[in-house]
């Protein structure tokens, strides 16, 4: 998994040739921490198909504002510079897999 910030977000996410799953999180967010191992697993399993990128909203408030992040964890899939889908709150491993498949296979 990579980290992105306000300076490299365009390169790391918006101009990425692969679909990107962006995880908006914060260090104080317990559900975000609970989700982290699931995302690590997903990043390993989908390594050939997608990149998983984490964005700390405390460090990068402009990105949270730009994408209208109202609650965390918030996951967003971006491909070819466009948002393809988002889901907020905790999510099971199976549901996360279905979410990624629904928005990645179509591209």
């Amino acid at each position, binding site marked *: 998994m990579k980290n992105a910030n306000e300076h490299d977000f365009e390169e790391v996410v918006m101009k990425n040739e692969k679909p990107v799953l962006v995880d908006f999180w914060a260090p104080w967010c317990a559900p975000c921490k609970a989700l982290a191992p699931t995302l690590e697993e997903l990043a390993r399993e989908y390594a050939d198909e997608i990149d998983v990128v984490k964005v700390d909203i405390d460090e990068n408030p402009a990105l949270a504002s730009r994408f209208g992040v109202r609650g965390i964890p918030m996951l967003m899939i971006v491909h070819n510079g466009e948002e393809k889908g988002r889901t907020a709150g905790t999510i099971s*491993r199976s549901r996360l897999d279905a979410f990624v498949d629904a928005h990645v296979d179509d591209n």
Partner: protein
Amino acid sequence: MPDIAFHADPAIKVDAQARLRGHIDAKRFIFYPAWEDGAANVIGAIIQSGDQQAYADHLGYPIALVTALDSIVNAYSTTPLAAEYAQSWLDRTPVGADLSDIVSQAIIFLLERPELVAHARGHAGIETARQAILALHRRALQGDAPERKAWKVVRLAAVTASDQAKDPLVRCAGTVVEAAAWPGTMRTVLHDVLGASGRLELKQLMQEIGWTDEEESQVFHIREQAEIDGRMAELSGLDRVLGLLDADNPQLAGRFRQRLDQFEKLGHVYRSAGAEILDLFSRAPVPVASR
């Protein structure tokens, strides 16, 4: 690489048993956290931290089994009962046993529980997915590991079927089925299936007494308001909640006591899975080289 219990070294088992026994005898065995000031849970007692991977590596258990261990132990209502299970976990694991199949076997046990089957059959798609997932786990046990794509297809079918189900209990059963749609090597698969099974159990127990989300919300708001205005601050925890309810809404207080009684029954699914795992340990094959 197979998961060989205690790496076929009797000394590793003896050492783990002694460490656990030491914590229990010293009354330093706790539910949570894993390790704090010398007090430890089932994981921390062995490796002095909550690192599940380190526990799995040290003792030779599959990581997907270890990620479920503390939730099983925590389903016991008292520390002595939890400690007894933790000891049985080690005692009943034969040195050198091949534990590689235990997770899929435990998932099959959970998918075949009558409580789940009854609700899964409430939606044809969920029942079809349950059967398909059982078949994949059985294939894996026969050494014919299904490909990633096969798991993915049944997983998505299970998620779709769960979303279609209208009955809350059937939908909840669907989430158990979809959580099981992973190979037994997936790190959290057993933990996730147990969690979903526990939520189904909770929903069923609450439905038995007709406890509603509205009642839950009423209790929450009475408690929340008391936090703001400081009412009955001389009481704490459950005593305070019950005191507030008795004063404000005696009928709801009676219902809440019923709810608490139902809560006492929670954890059965974890404990029955835990008992099944101990039986699976006893039956696990011990390769000839380990004897």
